[in-house]
C-alpha cells in the first residue's frame, strides 16, 4: 500500500463485506445489539471459521499473518456495517500477544486461534476518560484488583487484555479470562448500543502478564495507538456509508415535485460530507502505514487520523440526520446506528482537542 489499497487488500475488504452483508448486515446488528437478541454466537463462529478473527495471528500460530494495513482494511468494513462483535479488538490483542515473547503471549495466541474473542481494558493511558476509576493494580504474583470503566463487549468476549500498575512500579499488560474468579462485569447504557460497554471490577483475579515484570508502558501506548487507528477506520467506513445513504435518499425523496437532491443547498451538504470522508480515507491510510512501518511519525499520524475522523465525523453524522429530514431522526431509519458509532469513536481514546495538543507538541515544539 502506498496510500492506496493493493488488489489483495481490496479483495480482503470485499470478502469480509460479503460475509457481513450475507449475515444480514444492519438488520442483524439491530436484532442482536439493539433489540436485545443476546450473544451473536453464530456470526462470531462464522468469522472464526473464515479466518477473520485470526487474521492478525502469525502464520506459525495458525493465522493469516496479515499486517496492520490489513487490520485497518478490516476495521473499515466493520464500520460500514457497525459490526457488533469484538473483531477489531481481537486483531489488536493478536498483535500485542505476537509481540510478547513468553508463555502468556503464546497462550493467548493459541486461544485466539481456537476462536476466542478478546477485548481491551486500557484505561488511564488511553485519554478521554475522566478521573474516577481506581485503575487496576497487579500484585507480585499476577493477581489483579481494581476497577476500569466502560470496557467494550466485556464478558461477551472470552479474554480481556488489562492494563495494570505493576507491584514494583511501571505498567503491565495482562491476559485475563473474562469469566475467571474475582472478575465482575456490570453493563452500562451508552449511546452506541452496537458496542455494549461494561465496567470491570477485579478482586484478586488471576491473569497472565504478557511482558513479564518489565514496564510495558510503550506496549500499552502502542496498543492504544493501533486502537485509535482502527476506531478511525471504523468511523471512515461508517461515514462513507452515511454519505452513500444520504445521496441515495435525496435522489429518491421528493418535495415540491422534484427530488430533494436537486436543491443546491443539499448538494453542498453531500459534497462537504463526501470531501470529509475522502480526507478521512487518506488519513487512515497514512496512519496505518506509519504503524506498519514503525515510522517515527506514528504518534503524529495516529493523532491526525483521530482528528480527521473526530469533528469531521460528527459533521458527517449531523449532516446525514439533517439531510434525511425528520425521517433521519427515527429509530427505523438506519442513520442513527452509524451516527452513534461515529460519535462514540470520536470521543473514545481522546477527542479532537486532546489529539490536537499531541500534534502541537510534535509539530510546534518538535517533541519526539
Amino acid at each position: 500500500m502506498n496510500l492506496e489499497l493493493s488488489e489483495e487488500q481490496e479483495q480482503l475488504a470485499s470478502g469480509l463485506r460479503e460475509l457481513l452483508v450475507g449475515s444480514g448486515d444492519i438488520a442483524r446488528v439491530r436484532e442482536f445489539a439493539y433489540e436485545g437478541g443476546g450473544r451473536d454466537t453464530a456470526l462470531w463462529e462464522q468469522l472464526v471459521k473464515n479466518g477473520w478473527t485470526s487474521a492478525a495471528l502469525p502464520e506459525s500460530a495458525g493465522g493469516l499473518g496479515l499486517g496492520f494495513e490489513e487490520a485497518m482494511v478490516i476495521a473499515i468494513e466493520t464500520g460500514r456495517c457497525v459490526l457488533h462483535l469484538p473483531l477489531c479488538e481481537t486483531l489488536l490483542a493478536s498483535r500485542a500477544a505476537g509481540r510478547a515473547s513468553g508463555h502468556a503471549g503464546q497462550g493467548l495466541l493459541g486461544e485466539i486461534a481456537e476462536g476466542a474473542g478478546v477485548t481491551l481494558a486500557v484505561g488511564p493511558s488511553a485519554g478521554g476518560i475522566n478521573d474516577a476509576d481506581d485503575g487496576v493494580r497487579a500484585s507480585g504474583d499476577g493477581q489483579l484488583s481494581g476497577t476500569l470503566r466502560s470496557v467494550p463487549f466485556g464478558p461477551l468476549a472470552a479474554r480481556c487484555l488489562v492494563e495494570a500498575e505493576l507491584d514494583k512500579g511501571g505498567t503491565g499488560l495482562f491476559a485475563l479470562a473474562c469469566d475467571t474468579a474475582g472478575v465482575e462485569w456490570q453493563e452500562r447504557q451508552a449511546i452506541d448500543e452496537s458496542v455494549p460497554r461494561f465496567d470491570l471490577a477485579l478482586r484478586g483475579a488471576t491473569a497472565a502478564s504478557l511482558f513479564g515484570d518489565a514496564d510495558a508502558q510503550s506496549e500499552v501506548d502502542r496498543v492504544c495507538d493501533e486502537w485509535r487507528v482502527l476506531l478511525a477506520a471504523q468511523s471512515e467506513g461508517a461515514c462513507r456509508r452515511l454519505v452513500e445513504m444520504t445521496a441515495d435518499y435525496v435522489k429518491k425523496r421528493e418535495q415540491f415535485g422534484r427530488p430533494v437532491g436537486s436543491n443546491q443547498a443539499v448538494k453542498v451538504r453531500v459534497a462537504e460530507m463526501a470531501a470529509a470522508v475522502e480526507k478521512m480515507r487518506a488519513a487512515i491510510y497514512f496512519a496505518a502505514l506509519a504503524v506498519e512501518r514503525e515510522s517515527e511519525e506514528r504518534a503524529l499520524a495516529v493523532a491526525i487520523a483521530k482528528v480527521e475522523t473526530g469533528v469531521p465525523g460528527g459533521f458527517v453524522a449531523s449532516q446525514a440526520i439533517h439531510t434525511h429530514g425528520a425521517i433521519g431522526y427515527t429509530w427505523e431509519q438506519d442513520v442513527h446506528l452509524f451516527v452513534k458509532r461515529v460519535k462514540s469513536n470520536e470521543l473514545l481514546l481522546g477527542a479532537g482537542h486532546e489529539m490536537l495538543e499531541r500534534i502541537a507538541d510534535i509539530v510546534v515544539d518538535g517533541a519526539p
Partner: protein
Amino acid sequence: MRVDIDLNPQEIEFRGEFRAWLTRNIPAGWEPSQARGLSHHESWELRRDFERRMGRDGWLGVAWPEEYGGRGATLMEQVIYQEELARAEAPGLAGHVGLQMVGPILMEVGTDEQRSRFLPPILRGEEVWYQGFSEPNAGSDLASLQTRAVLDGDEWVITGQKVWGGFAEFADWGAVLVRTDPDVPKHKGISFMVVDMKSPGIEISYIREMHGGSNMNEVFFDGVRVPRDNVISAINDGWNAATRLLTWERGVITLAILVNYEIFWERLREYARSTRRAGRLLSELPHVREGLAQTYVNIRMMKLANLRWLAHYLQGARPGFETSYMKLYWNKAHQSVTDLALEMGGADALELPGSDAAPEGSFPIEWMAARATSILGGTEDIQRNIIAERIYGLPRGN
C-alpha cells in the same frame, strides 16, 4: 443570567405572581432527570393534573383576550410567562396545540358555536388537541398533503395518514388538514377539520426516535366520519387558516426555549468545575474554557437578538421574516452547546441516563435532540432561502 430588557412594575409583579404559583404547584416527582424514567402514561397523568390546576387558577391561555376568558397578557407578559415555565422546568404543556393554535384560529375564523364548544375546555386544561398537519410525503412541502376528506351525506369521510404530531393517544380532538378538492392547485383544495380522536377508524402508533424514546405519533385515518360542521373557516380555506398562525410569535417561544439552554449550559459549567481529567479540572483546560465561553455567547446572543426584535413587536410590529434569523440562532445555540457537552465529557459523555457515571442531564440525549433542531419548524435550508429571497430580494426560481 440577567434580564436584558427593562420590565415595568406591572410586569415585575406578573413575574413574581406566576413564579410563586409555580413554586407551589410544580408536581412532586417531576424533575427533568427523573421525567425520562416515567412511563408514558405516568408522565401524562402528571402533566394533565398540573395543567388542570393551571386552568383552575387562570394560568392557561394568558395571551387570550379577556373576552374569551384569557388574561389578555401583553407580549412582554407572555415572554415572562414562557420564561418562568421553562425556568421552573415545569412539564411542557400537553395543551399547547389547543392553547397556541386551535384557540387563536377559532377566535379569528371560527363560528360562535365552535368557540363556545371548544374554547372553554381548552382554557380549563380539560380538553387536549392533536395537530395533524405533516404527512410522510408532505414535510417541508406541507401543501402536497394527501389525506382526503369526501363528503358523504352530512359527514366528511377522512382517509389518510399523518405523522409527527404528539399526544394523539391522549387527545380529545384533532385539528387536521385534509384535501377536500383534489382538482385545484394544491394550496387551494385543503380544509381544516376538527376530528373526535376517539372516532372509529383512527389508529395510532408511535414513532420511535433515534434516542429510543417515542413522543411522536403516526395516525391512520380509515374512513373516519366527521360531522359536516366540523370545518374551521370555509371549505378549501384550510391552508390560509392554518398557516396564518404558523409564523406565530416565534420570539416568545424562542425565549422560552433558550431558558432550557441556559440551564443546560449552567449544568455543563458545574460539570466542568467538578470533574477532573488527568488530575486537572475540566474548567481549567483552555479548550473547555473557550468552549464554555463561546457557547455562552451563542446562547446569550440568541437571547439578545430575540429581545431586539421583541422590542419591535412591543411597539406593535408584526413578526415577519426575521423569525428566520431566530431559528438559525436557535439551531446554532442548541447544536453548539450539545457538541461541547460531548467533547468536554469525553468517553463519559457517551453514557445514557440511568448509568451512574453519566453526566447529569444526559449529554448524548440532548446532543441527539439538538440534531432535530435544524429540521423542525422549517429546516435551516428553508430559513436561509427566506432570508435571501424575502429580506434581500434574491430571485426565487430555484
